[in-house]
């Protein structure tokens, strides 16, 4: 933007416009951050620390294996450092101390990897966008948080934007509809990447739902604290999903998926929900979210 912040009226600008100075300092800063963050190198194959996220760790490990396969297929080595949670529930509940402790734990655990990759826009967003906020006023820790943030990516954006993956070798028969989870969409700009990879899956067609970019009503602890409102929001989402006529719902965040799958099932709709990574990794034959093992 080249316009000055406000047009100067005669004698009405109490202080001169600061926009040019601001842009310069931001530029210099980004340069310094980039220099300080040159990732440690591990030969030709980058070393990726997979942050599974608590929900994947606890509820649906198959997403973690799918993510690992996709990252390996993209020419990387995968390690799984000891991990618990990124601290987002504490952060969003106003408990900054717990959020800070858990952030430090992750910053330590993922110190030696080239990238931190998570199969969730929400958790990746917490690390990439909010960890640095937790250490404002603590220069040394803030620098480390910035460094980790710069190396952190949501899975699909890592594959497409960082590794340049344009297609996958997978087959999935049927129509799917894709929900854009909020943090991935608005904090990390993930929109076209998953659709691009889905286009390369054999047998799969994407049938867009109405308002795929509108919140499903999950919102972490919101879904429990304000269960009734959350339920009303996800009911609308379920209607949009059903109206797409796709047999499968995909998304990049397990929290949103459990919310939508749970509502679809409560309403008796036949749509099956899966994490997008499972389909892209050719692991779309696991029982869908909330479905029993086939006997």
């Amino acid at each position, binding site marked *: 933007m080249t316009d000055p912040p*406000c047009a100067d009226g005669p004698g*009405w600008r109490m202080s001169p416009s600061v926009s040019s100075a601001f842009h310069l300092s931001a530029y210099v800063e980004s340069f310094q951050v980039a220099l300080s963050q040159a990732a440690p190198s591990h030969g030709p194959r980058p070393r990726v620390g997979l942050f599974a996220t608590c929900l994947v760790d606890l509820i649906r490990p198959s997403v973690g*294996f799918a993510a690992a396969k996709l990252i390996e297929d993209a020419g990387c080595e995968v390690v799984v450092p*000891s991990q618990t949670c990124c601290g987002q*529930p504490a952060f969003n*509940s106003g408990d900054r101390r717990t959020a800070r402790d858990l952030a430090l734990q992750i910053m330590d655990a993922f110190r030696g990897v080239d990238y931190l990759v998570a199969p969730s826009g929400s958790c990746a967003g917490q690390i990439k966008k909010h960890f640095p906020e937790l250490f404002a006023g603590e220069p040394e820790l803030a620098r480390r948080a910035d460094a980790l943030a710069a190396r952190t990516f949501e899975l699909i954006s890592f594959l497409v934007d960082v590794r340049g993956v344009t297609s996958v070798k997978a087959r999935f028969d049927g129509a799917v509809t894709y929900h854009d989870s909020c943090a991935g969409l608005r904090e990390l700009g993930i929109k076209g990447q998953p659709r691009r990879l889905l286009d390369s899956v054999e047998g799969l067609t994407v049938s867009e739902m109405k308002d795929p970019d509108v919140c499903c*009503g999950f919102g972490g602890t919101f879904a429990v604290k304000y269960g*009734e409102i959350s339920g009303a929001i996800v009911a609308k989402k379920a209607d949009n999903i059903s109206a797409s006529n796709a047999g499968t719902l995909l998304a990049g965040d397990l929290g949103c998926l459990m919310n939508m799958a749970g509502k679809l099932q409560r309403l008796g709709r036949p749509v099956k929900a899966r994490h997008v990574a499972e389909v892209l990794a050719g692991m779309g034959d696991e029982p869908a979210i909330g479905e029993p093992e086939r006997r």
Partner: protein
Amino acid sequence: MTVHVPTSPAFKQNAHEALGDAALQRALGNVEKGFIAKRRKAADKIPEFEALRDSARDIKNHTLAHLDLYLEAYEEKVRAAGGHVHFAPTAADASKIVVDICRRVGARTVAKGKSMISEEIDLNAHLEAAGVTPVETDLGEYIIQLRGERPSHIVAPVIHLNRDQIEENFRAAHTDLPADRDLHAPESLLAEARAMLRQKFLAADVGITGANFLVAETGTSIIVTNEGNGDLSQTLPKVHIVLASIEKLVPTREDVSQMLRVLARSATGQEITVYTTLSTGPRRPADVDGPEEYHVVLLDNGRSAMLGGEFREMLRCIRCAACMNHCPVYHAVGGHAYGWVYPGPMGAVLSPSLIGVDKAGHLPNASTFCGRCESVCPVRIPLPKLMRHWREREFERNLSPAPVRAGLKFWGFFARRPALYRLATRVGMGALALAGRSKGRFRSLPLAKGWTGARDFAAPQGGTFQSRWAAERKAK
């Protein structure tokens, strides 16, 4: 006198009732259908829209950084034009100033343009208590007044109503109308309101308007309307009172022209509103019309305290309502559920500042943090971040609900201890997986009623990812 007590502490109950109100739910469908597509279209039409948002943000930031100087400059210009400026530290002060002016000039009726500050200070109740009859002249506000309600939206006060409800209110109030008089079409309603209001304008002793902007450079107040009622409210009566909060200041008219470019597009998807009305001081000797007296009541009511703190960015707000128009929670429960004057995301940040987080504490919590509000805010207020700051203040003051605190503490204990966490989750998830194996999900779970009241909960696959990964790597 009906003084409105905030019902924000009962937000959950309000929301529950709103969700069960079929007529309200039908009306709320219009928010999603109308505003969003119109804003998108208006924004897409000008390539510089995003740059204009930056510019609007910067104008407001600059003004707030020098607000004391701009307020002084503004006051001086209003005085020089023959007007009076009254500073009102609290809502009660502002009402008293207005009532005193009305009493001094012996006012019996007051014609009012749309003003959210009037709602904030509960002005109508105070006027009525003083024997002055307030007449709302904005069609939406007029309907609200007929119903004895509060607006449910800061731009479209009756967005919570359907046409047949409004028709019913008109029939009840305008008793002289023949039964076959059509009141269903909006134009017809407007014609009826207009005919009635015209008399009121002519009879009003005092006109009260809000202000969208106050210009420091010239001492001008500016309102934007689509009905023209504001013009009549401020030019016909012999006294004009402008009711505005201190953050409405902008330095120059040039700045206003930039702000106007984002305001209407963000609010209603219009390029500009039908009327943009400027007023500076009372009628001058050569003027053909205008008021004999011109007053500006500048309300603080907690705003100057926000200036130095973490909620300062909220003072950039220009009341376009784009945040609530795009909010899934607002779409679900409507504006009244929020329980006070300002609903939606902007209200969730502003209300705790104005009436206290102890009363309005639910509002910043009742958000999914989907971020859609921030993505459309014309002055780029980081609404989710500011809501999160309120949650932090609540947590510090032990105002968060006990089960939430207990849950966080329990979970935080394990999350801080990775080895214990791995052990406990492996056992816990193993048990849960076993319990849910046959169905694959749970219809109800103890301790998770908030979740299972509305939807099923997926059973875990069994084994944690970390334990299964470790086992697989060992086997290789």
